[in-house]
């Protein structure tokens, strides 16, 4: 797939900006705080309806404005699509395809695919389990857009069940018929999440391990393993259901005591190990970077395989942070197959050959000039 144009209106520090992408690689160069990451964020939003930097739409709307719009023209094998996302300071966002409003955000997802890779992604290794869940969920949304709905339903059940547990906690109620029903809801919504996460990791793990082997020169073995909160011996639906229900009843007293849900995929983990050692504890920054790079390359390949077209790659500052060997590994892997947007403060660290083949855009104070 190829992103032909991007149009930002009142988005972050942009007032009104058109961008035409003229080469498979675009380098956005500029000083700090000029709007390079903001542009990548706009593309990320069109792909996932999420931003890894912000959870509130009001932050995305240009200061002093009420509304913001991000639009793009995307070329895919199936044809050309106009996408647009309208964000509001106060109010719900809306999305449109070819100027027609789409009621379900789910139908908007999966049109544009992109893999985001920034220096923040080191948190995948260093951060807590929630970082890895968010990463996996964002990937899943692109692999199967219906997952956005599945996840939202699970989170809604979770919030409701937590509210009920709080109420039970403060009222000393013994058992509750209502809780039984919320348990059933937690199990059925939770199982949909668990099965998809498990499937995605099963597909991703070998690809990531391969990349890791080739980048590290086969001295290290990367293992990516899904460690669900509800564990079963086999993947069978009945088994999983049974295990889930049993775990809920085994934690019933603790849950009522703490007034919160202790069982379910909101407590899942994705374990990353290198040579059998947890990656967080293992190795240098460089080694952790290799790991994240392998994960990102695996994401690219997986989306390409499942979607049938190559996703965009958004490289925010990371290229300069990689040593030459890893830079070349990455560039070799993407070649011209993946349209790539790259941000940097200096062109100096780029290969000359590479610079020649790329479109270079200068970003300054929310304005873009080609040069």
């Amino acid at each position, binding site marked *: 797939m190829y992103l032909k144009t991007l149009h930002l209106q009142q988005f972050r520090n942009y007032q009104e900006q058109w961008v035409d992408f003229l080469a498979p690689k675009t380098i956005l160069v500029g000083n700090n705080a000029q709007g390079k990451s903001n542009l990548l964020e706009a593309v990320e939003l069109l792909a996932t309806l999420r931003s890894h930097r912000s959870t509130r739409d009001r932050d995305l709307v240009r200061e002093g404005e009420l509304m913001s719009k991000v639009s793009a023209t995307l070329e895919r094998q199936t044809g050309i699509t106009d996408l647009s996302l309208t964000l509001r300071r106060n109010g719900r966002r809306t999305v449109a395809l070819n100027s027609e409003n789409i*009621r*379900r955000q*789910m139908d908007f997802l999966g049109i544009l695919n992109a893999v985001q890779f920034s220096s923040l992604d080191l948190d995948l290794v260093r951060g807590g389990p929630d970082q890895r869940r968010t990463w996996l969920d964002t990937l899943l949304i692109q692999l199967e857009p219906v997952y956005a*709905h599945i996840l939202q*339903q699970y989170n*809604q*059940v979770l*919030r*409701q*069940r937590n*509210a*009920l547990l709080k*109420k039970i906690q403060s009222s000393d109620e013994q058992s509750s*018929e*209502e809780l*039984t*029903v*919320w348990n*059933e*809801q937690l199990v059925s*919504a939770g199982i949909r999440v668990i099965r998809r996460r498990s499937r995605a990791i099963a597909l991703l793990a070998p690809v990531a391990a391969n990349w890791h082997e080739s980048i590290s020169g086969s001295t290290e073995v990367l293992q990516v393993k899904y460690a669900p909160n509800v564990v079963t011996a086999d993947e069978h639906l009945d088994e999983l259901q049974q295990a889930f229900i049993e775990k809920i009843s085994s934690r019933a007293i603790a849950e009522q005591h703490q007034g919160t849900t202790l069982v379910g995929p909101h407590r899942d983990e994705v374990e990353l190990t290198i040579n059998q050692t947890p990656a967080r504890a293992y190795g240098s920054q460089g080694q952790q970077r290799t790991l994240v790079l392998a994960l990102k390359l695996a994401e690219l390949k997986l989306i390409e395989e499942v979607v049938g077209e190559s996703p965009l790659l958004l490289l925010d500052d990371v290229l300069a942070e990689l040593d030459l060997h890893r830079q070349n590994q990455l560039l070799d892997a993407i070649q011209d197959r993946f349209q790539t947007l790259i941000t940097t403060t200096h062109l100096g660290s780029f290969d000359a050959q590479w610079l020649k083949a790329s479109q270079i855009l200068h970003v300054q104070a929310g304005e873009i000039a080609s040069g």
Partner: protein
Amino acid sequence: MALHILKRPETEIQALAQALIDAKQQVGLCSVCFHLSAEPVCEICRNTNRDDHTICVVSDSRDVIALEKTREYHGKYHVLGGVISPMDGIGPEQLTIQSLVRRVSQQKPKEIILAISPSVEGETTTLYLGQLLKPFTRVTRIAFGLPVGGDLEYADEVTLARALEGRRELD
């Protein structure tokens, strides 16, 4: 509507305001089914031509109005007055569920149709009622293929009529 009203002469607005206040005072809830009604018992409950053996349970009076428009349903209704939602402090006690159980145990209907929106809260309410009512009688639910996040209110009449035909046993 507010803008439209503001353009009218003041006397007219006063008359309208009074009419709205009267309406609010007069319209109460039917003591049997909790549908909006000016009388103690609503027109649908009083209508002897309607089938007493079926009760269709909905969350809101608007759903009754939507289902009535289909002219496909000839039984009685029961309006819950919402759905179970702990976050909003709404449990079974806040809804008209006790009255429903009383009604069912006394009237012994042949079928109860649950027609509640498929949101997380609606689904929970459906499951809860299913467990509660199954000992008394046959419980079915409307199998509506409404869009995600869609409410009964917005379903067109054809969709609803088809949904009524395709209702299925609650398991």
